[in-house]
């Protein structure tokens, strides 16, 4: 069924269709309407789930961690400082290999306070062992939430579904709500291999030594490093699972097909602009204009940021002349995190004349600074037409010092 609704409602409907069993919620702008909507759906009796209004985000994820350990499909959502407040719990959830799904409605982080959109919140959590998916529009939000549960439960790694605060969370767009009977067949009830139960006692997340150790039957058990190595291996291997889940979804619902990156007018492009979320659609408009002027340029959006789809990224970018990465986040003291990762993915791909594409970085839109089409147009055009100088230093768009 097609409806016109906000991005937050799209996410809430995705959670409803996924039949999450335990939902922990703490308010923070611009996530709040999502968990409010869920409380309304549950109070109205349209969904059976435990809705737990916690006293902090740290506790929100604690609830999900415990509920997931005890075998329930668990969901929470947050933004900005709420996500940062969860930091310790993010590592705990992935270390404990729990298939929690969380929506991160992207917002800039304090200080100073801002409630508006950028990507610093989720980008700064990239090393916590969570899968990170970014949605570009409302349809992708609802679809990604449903796919995220299927993925998380297959690979036993928690998943963040990230989307732009306000630009997507509070704007209204048409999208299709998948049929509940179809989502039920796509996403069967959660059946973990083990969950906490007095009938089968186990001690989870115990202190684990540096070295391997035998159990009481003399069988070798992993040490801390083996457990962590397996997280890394499974995280990398999850890219196959992501493709499988995406194609299963596409077979049923007819949408998807580009779970890693989404390319626009890129096949023959000499230059490729890279963006995340709604910005990538904004860049499409700019690229259309530049194409009209005869500049061979396309857009690539990152749909998946962790695990980093380095092969897909390299394949898409290695043969072009220049890559221009537009970012709403910064690794302070260096450059945008996506820019660094793209450079590293391209490192092994050297062209016939010993050349690689140049990679430029633009920082823009921090704390919701308006991104003018004119500025994107000028920045991208300049980058496609002049030889870049000091490419390692990010340039800033829209700065008014």
């Amino acid at each position: 069924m097609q409806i016109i609704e906000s991005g937050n409602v799209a996410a809430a409907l995705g959670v409803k269709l996924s039949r999450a069993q335990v939902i922990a919620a703490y308010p923070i702008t611009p996530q709040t309407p999502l968990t409010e909507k869920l409380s309304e759906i549950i109070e109205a009796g349209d969904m059976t789930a435990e809705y737990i209004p916690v006293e902090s985000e740290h506790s929100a994820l604690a609830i999900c961690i415990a509920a997931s350990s005890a075998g329930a499909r668990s969901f929470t959502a947050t933004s900005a400082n709420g996500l940062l407040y969860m930091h310790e719990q993010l590592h705990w959830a992935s270390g404990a290999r729990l298939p929690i799904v969380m929506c991160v409605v992207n917002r800039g982080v304090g200080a100073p306070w801002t409630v508006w959109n950028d990507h610093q919140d989720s980008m700064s959590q990239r090393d916590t062992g969570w899968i990170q998916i970014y949605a570009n529009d409302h349809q992708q939000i609802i679809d990604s939430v449903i796919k995220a549960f299927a993925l998380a439960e297959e690979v036993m790694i928690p998943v963040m579904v990230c989307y732009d605060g306000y630009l997507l969370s509070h704007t209204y767009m048409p999208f299709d709500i998948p049929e509940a009977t179809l989502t039920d067949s796509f996403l069967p009830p959660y059946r973990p291999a083990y969950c906490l139960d007095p009938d089968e006692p186990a001690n989870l997340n115990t202190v684990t030594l540096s070295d391997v150790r035998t159990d009481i039957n003399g069988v070798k058990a992993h040490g801390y490093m083996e457990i962590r190595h397996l997280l890394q291996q499974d995280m990398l291997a999850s890219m196959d699972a992501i493709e499988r889940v995406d194609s299963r979804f596409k077979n049923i619902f007819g949408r998807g097909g580009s779970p890693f990156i989404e390319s626009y007018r890129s096949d023959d492009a000499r230059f490729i602009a890279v963006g995340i979320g709604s910005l990538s659609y904004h860049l499409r408009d700019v690229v259309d204009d530049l194409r009209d002027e005869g500049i061979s340029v396309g857009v690539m959006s990152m749909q998946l940021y962790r695990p980093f789809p380095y092969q897909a990224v390299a394949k898409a970018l290695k043969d072009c002349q220049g890559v221009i990465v537009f970012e709403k986040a910064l690794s302070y003291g260096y450059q945008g995190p996506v820019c660094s990762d793209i450079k590293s993915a391209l490192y092994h791909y050297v062209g016939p004349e010993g050349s690689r594409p140049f990679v430029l970085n633009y920082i823009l839109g921090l704390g919701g600074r308006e991104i003018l089409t004119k500025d994107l147009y000028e920045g991208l055009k300049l980058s496609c037409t002049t030889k870049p100088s000091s490419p390692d230093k990010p340039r800033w768009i829209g700065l008014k010092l």
Partner: protein
Amino acid sequence: MHTKTNILSLPEEELVYPGNRACAGCALGIAYRIGLKALGKNTIIVVPPSCLTVLQGLYPIAATKLPCLNVTFASTAAAATGLLGALKARNRKGINVVGWAGDGGTSDIGLQSLSGACERGDNFLFVCYDNEGYMNTGVQRSGTTPIGALTANTPIKGKLQRKKDVPAIMSAHRIPYVATCSAAYPLDLYDKIKKALTYEGVKYIHIHTPCPPGWGFEPRYAVKIGKLAVETGLYELYEVENSNVRLTGASEKLMEKRRLLPARDYFRAQGRFAILTDSQIEQQQQEVNARWEAYFNTTEDPDEDTPD
């Protein structure tokens, strides 16, 4: 009147294996062993980092026969709520959910999530074992370290502030059951846990838990020190049932007999109070006397003739 458990009626089954990793003479070992007997097998325990994490064993060996979830330091109570949510979703009924944390994990870093759970009225038991300091990290001061105690980070002057009254904070949430216990009175602890489990909502049990290396006494004296704390009147055993306060067990007897041991006996038996001067001890004695005078006034003096 509920029947009191005695040593003969205590369940024989052990849910804590012998030979765990607690220090020799650790009173937590007593409290945990007896506590789990009271909880029984149909229980899931939540444990934050603390001496109990160590007692529980190192992967892949565990010291308890119950399912246990180790969680982050601040999140014991919230995790207990999460377990309840999952059990309800899975339609698993009659399982006790229990958070078992140290005093730091309860009175300091864990207080916010515990308070949140109390306000929501989630149905679990929270046990705080109070060894009056951050023992796992090497005996630093906590909110419940008593005034005057030397710790690793109050090494010269001793702690300058009073002990935080956590059971009173819990009572202020108007949860249905709050009780204080001591590891030195394990049967009282057993009965109070049993009683707690009959209530719906958050139940809170605070256990005074002497710690030989942290408090500076020989391992064999853990029970003796625990009893001294009660018999000097410094630590009261009581229950708050639906907001009604009542001294219990050894403290109730003390009230009836109207005879406290000198506080000095307790302080002088422990290295951590070595810098307390006689006048500081006297000052604490005055405070205990004043507190107990109020208790005495609520009962009749056994030495006075009772009028017919």
